[in-house]
């Protein structure tokens, strides 16, 4: 199982999901309307490292973070 965190304004509690790649995770998240609307604008980190490819492999215990648009300062 992979832990998915929804950061900042997404405002949803973390979920545990069964997925072995980011591609698979994407398919699962697209089915949740509360989350789906954020996917277009969100960046992704796996174990606190930013990733830019759907081919990234996931293993049990990994943490995936969804990062919506930011504005510090």
């Amino acid at each position, binding site marked *: 199982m992979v832990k998915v965190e929804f950061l900042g304004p997404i405002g949803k509690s973390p979920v545990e999901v069964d997925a072995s790649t980011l591609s698979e995770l994407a398919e699962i998240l697209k089915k949740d309307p509360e989350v789906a609307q954020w996917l277009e604008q969100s960046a992704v980190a796996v174990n606190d490292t930013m990733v830019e490819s759907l081919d990234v492999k996931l293993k049990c215990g990994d943490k995936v973070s969804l990062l*919506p648009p930011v*504005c510090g300062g």
Partner: protein
Amino acid sequence: MVLIYNGPIDVQSLLSSWYSAEHNRNYGAMVTFVGTVREEAGIEALSFDIYRPLLDKWFEGWKRRLEKEGALLAMAHSEGDVPVHTSSFACAIFSPKRRIALEMLDAFVEDFKANAPIWKYDVINGKRIYAKERSTPMAGSGLLAKD
């Protein structure tokens, strides 16, 4: 590591402590940036969420980049509510010569706005409203929306 304040930054003692820690280490230039909450559009405060593990990673990357130029970087940011006319962001760069400090301050602050994992909310009548229009998608956004 980024210094995180719960609420507004005490700018006067922060700038004093940065200066006093570094002025005798032979840096010829110190530049600082301080961001203060403006009174506009009826807000009482801004409020911030921070994802600390990634903020520290992003910051350490910049720190190393500046170290290669012989320069030193320090930064503080607020979490939670920051009332109008108080400050939520401060940074300082120390370098042997002025050019690096001036150029890197500009580059660092702009990248901070675009890529630091911090989320901003307007506080109006005690309610926290995501500042969606002023926010920027981070590099690589939309990955999970691809077909």
